[in-house]
């Protein structure tokens, strides 16, 4: 029941927050924090380990549309829990980050924010494919509204592009889900959208490949994979700060989560076959994103393109298909969430003071806003993968894992480290250093801003120096994902790991 509450609380909270605006202006902000806090408490009291031998810490299942074999099926494991924590934390951060920015339709803003959070939580918990799809779509609508109502100049274009990209690709996924369900129907005579049932499916190679592609494209758009990424810079740039933070820090992670939770286990063989291409695209994304980030004049766009680069690492790690890389990929999801969120918040703060994000007009922030600049430097360094911060551990694990799987591609991705240095230091040099911009209103971080950034920085540092809790948390889920496949070991001889988990089940 906790799982249902986890989704219901933000949903109801969203309505409450909307209404709260009528009672007292500004109540909405505090209330949304309270909602997220409640949510965190709830998540806290959930048992943080699985019953002996199982993967899921907690499950909930009840009928929804039995005619079609659809049920409300939620489950929590280490991977979802980790991402839930990230979601709640980032949710709170984005509430705080938009404390002063948003002065119009405050209640509706926070309503949308909470709705989006609810949708994302649903995505991380749903184990019925239909249910998953519903949440998958649901998290987008409030996000589109966030962009379209509170965004910057070009917001309608960005919102439309974002909407069409994600919706069209997810329709492909829906087709793939249906294809899968009907293959299951054909084999067993039972309609079922349940993850567990579909996991047991034996697929012929060709349909498996096409269905896998349907899933993959939807997730790759969200990730985003290079070539399908073009919605991202626009959406990130035009969204209000809180929107960019939500988008970059958690929405992108749903793509990676989908790959981990659905694409790999449902289509182990097709995924393994597809892996080299996906890894190549990941590596390409690393470089291409870095190159584009480097070319940007708009600070926010620069940060947006770094996401393409970082999520390229995630793709690379996921398709390396070994423990090391997968754990690294999850770690990267976390680290990228924290560091990029921080950078977007900083861009928002700079914009609030300068009313420009053009790096050609900025400069010399350090002399005016030393504290903010210090944070900028730190997060830029996190972004370039400085050892000691969480991003480094993640990228290192990904590269170490990917290298064992496919060394030439990994070497290519390695050059992304140089690219990261290029754009991150360019950001530092262009915005912090140089002569001071004259028209500045100079007040450094307020306590609220300091608190947000310091907490993000602290987490990055803690996970950089002591990432073990995270790695332990996802160790089991990752192992389970990998147990579903044929895994070439490092020696090069293919060793078939039987699908144990499938055969045990009736």
């Amino acid at each position: 029941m906790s799982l249902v509450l986890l989704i219901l609380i933000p949903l109801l909270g969203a309505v409450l927050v909307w209404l709260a605006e009528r009672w007292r202006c500004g109540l909405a902000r505090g209330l949304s924090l309270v909602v997220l806090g409640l949510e965190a408490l709830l998540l806290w009291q959930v048992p943080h380990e699985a019953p002996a031998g199982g993967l899921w810490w907690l499950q909930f299942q009840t009928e929804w549309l039995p005619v079609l074999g659809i049920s409300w099926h939620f489950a929590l494991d280490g991977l979802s829990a980790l991402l839930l924590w990230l979601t709640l934390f980032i949710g709170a951060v984005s509430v705080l980050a938009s404390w002063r920015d948003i002065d119009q339709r405050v209640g509706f803003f926070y309503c949308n924010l909470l709705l989006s959070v609810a949708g994302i939580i649903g995505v991380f918990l749903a184990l019925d494919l239909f249910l998953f799809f519903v949440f998958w779509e649901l998290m987008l609508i409030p996000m589109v509204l966030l962009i379209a109502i509170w965004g910057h100049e070009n917001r309608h274009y960005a919102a439309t592009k974002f909407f069409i990209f994600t919706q069209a690709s997810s329709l492909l996924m829906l087709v793939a889900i249906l294809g899968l369900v009907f293959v299951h129907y054909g084999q067993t005579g039972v309609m079922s959208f349940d993850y567990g049932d579909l996991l047991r499916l034996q697929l012929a190679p060709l349909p498996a490949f096409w269905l896998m592609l349907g899933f993959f494209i939807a997730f790759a758009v969200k990730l985003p994979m290079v070539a399908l990424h073009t919605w991202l810079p626009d959406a990130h740039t035009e969204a209000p700060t809180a929107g960019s933070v939500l988008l970059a820090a958690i929405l992108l992670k749903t793509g990676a989560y989908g790959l981990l939770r659905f694409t790999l286990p449902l289509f182990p063989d097709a995924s393994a076959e597809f892996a080299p291409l996906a890894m190549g695209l990941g590596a390409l994304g690393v470089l291409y994103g870095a190159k584009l980030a480097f070319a940007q004049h708009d600070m926010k766009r620069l940060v947006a393109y770094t996401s393409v680069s970082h999520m390229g690492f995630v793709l690379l790690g996921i398709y390396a298909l070994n423990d090391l890389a997968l754990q690294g990929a999850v770690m990267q999801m976390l680290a990228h969430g924290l560091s990029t969120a921080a950078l977007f918040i900083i861009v928002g703060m700079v914009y609030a003071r300068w009313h420009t994000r053009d790096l050609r007009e900025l400069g010399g922030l350090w002399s005016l806003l030393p504290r903010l600049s210090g944070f900028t430097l730190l997060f830029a360094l996190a972004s370039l993968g400085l050892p000691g911060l969480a991003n480094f551990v993640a990228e290192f694990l990904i590269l170490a894992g990917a290298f064992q799987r496919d060394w030439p591609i990994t070497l290519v991705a390695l050059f992304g480290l140089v690219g990261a240095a290029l754009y991150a230091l360019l950001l530092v040099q262009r915005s912090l250093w140089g002569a001071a911009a004259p028209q500045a209103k100079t007040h450094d971080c307020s306590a609220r801003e300091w608190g947000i950034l310091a907490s993000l920085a602290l987490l990055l540092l803690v996970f950089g120096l002591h990432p073990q809790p995270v790695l332990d948390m996802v160790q089991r889920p990752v192992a389970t994902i990998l147990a579903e496949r044929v895994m070439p070991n490092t020696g090069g001889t293919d060793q078939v790991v039987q699908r144990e988990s499938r055969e045990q089940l009736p």
Partner: protein
Amino acid sequence: MTLLELRALLPLLLVALTIVVTMLLAGFCRQRRLLFWVYQLGLLAALLSLGGNLDLQASGVEVTPLLRIDAFFGFFAALFILVAMCVGLMAAQYFGRREHLAVPVEECYVLLALCLLGALVLASAQHLAALFIGLELMSVASFALVAYPCGAAPGSDRLQLPSLEAGLKYLVLSSVASAFLLFGMACLYLQSGTLAFTRLSLPVDIPAAGLLPLAGLALLLIGVAFKLALVPFHMWTPDVYQGAPTPFTALIATLSKGALVAVLLRYLLMSDALQSEQIAAVLRVLAMLSILVGNLLALRQDDMKRLLAYSSIAHLGYLLVVFLATGQADSSEFALQAGAFYLLAYSLTTLAAFAMIGTLSGGVGESRDYRLQRYSGLCWREPVLGGCFMLILLSLAGIPLTVGFIGKFYILAAGAQAGLWWLLVVVVLGSALGLYYYLRIILVLLQQDESVRGLRYHSGRWLIYGLTLLLVLLGIYPLPVMQWLPLF
């Protein structure tokens, strides 16, 4: 005719009775309120009698060779009656707002009931003659409705023109299409000697003998395609939608298309028309063209009613997937259910959309301006109404938690089960195009525009709220409807 058959036919008879009564009343006792209630009660009675007939519908009763009362009929008839009731309500509100223009509103109930009767006949038709009668009953009544005077102030005729123009276009084009349809029927009749829906046993390889039934089927399809507004027989749609009084546009969009869908489904299921590769190919091409062209035409359309017209073209294109899926033995059952649900979702959403437009157009009295810009900032001026509008648009776009999503889900499911992958790709493409213009309207609704001010919309709200609520409820929990879907 036995008592059983009479009982089975009771819904139709009750509607017919309503027609007679309303006509007489319209002649002798012109009280719009009274007529409205007579109309609604008559339809309610028909609906109840339909409920009382469930046992007959379950077993299926043939009333003369023409009509067949079964579960299939039950579902569609209930849907049509409900739609007609809603349209009646919309009409009452629509003309209520135009009371000062002295529009003669009383006759419209007669015409509405006539349309409904035609639709019910179509839903139960199992004979080409019944098809013809039902179709023309519906068409002739709807000509009059499209051209219905909707606000000609005594001195000025200007406002009357659009509906007149629409009516004439609809009449002429529809007659041309009817002629095609009849020619097709005649060909089929010439070939088989019967007008009942039967297996045509089309020859697989086409010698000259097979040409006649094939051509007949094709001509029949053309007639139906016109009514369903499939590309390339779609051109009348935007003009008629735009010109007709809004409640009757809703009628054209839902009832008359729905009835044709019902009869075509039954025809395709009872005959083996889809066994012919050529007919399937025609349907496939029509589907793809409708989806793409419909969505493309709607893309930057600025007139709300024309936009809905184009979007309905695309929606019917999606629906054709279901028709194609019925062609395969293992998926026909599910496809039928999918089609029925989609029609329900489409009707509900379209009704809600037109109710919304009707209400919004009534703001300044006689305005017949449906340009998007008029809705700018609606969400801020009228949050609840704007929210409903957004939900309706999301339902049209097929976003989850609205009934439109479940409908689209069914379509995709039927297509996936029948393995119509290419068609599904086109559906996805079309949906992507569709998202653009639905979102475009939503963005207009959300615009921070202060130029449109002071409009207050009073009447018709509750209908919109009700429909929107239903639309969301069925989107979240469609199980009751799903269980009620007909099995052929």
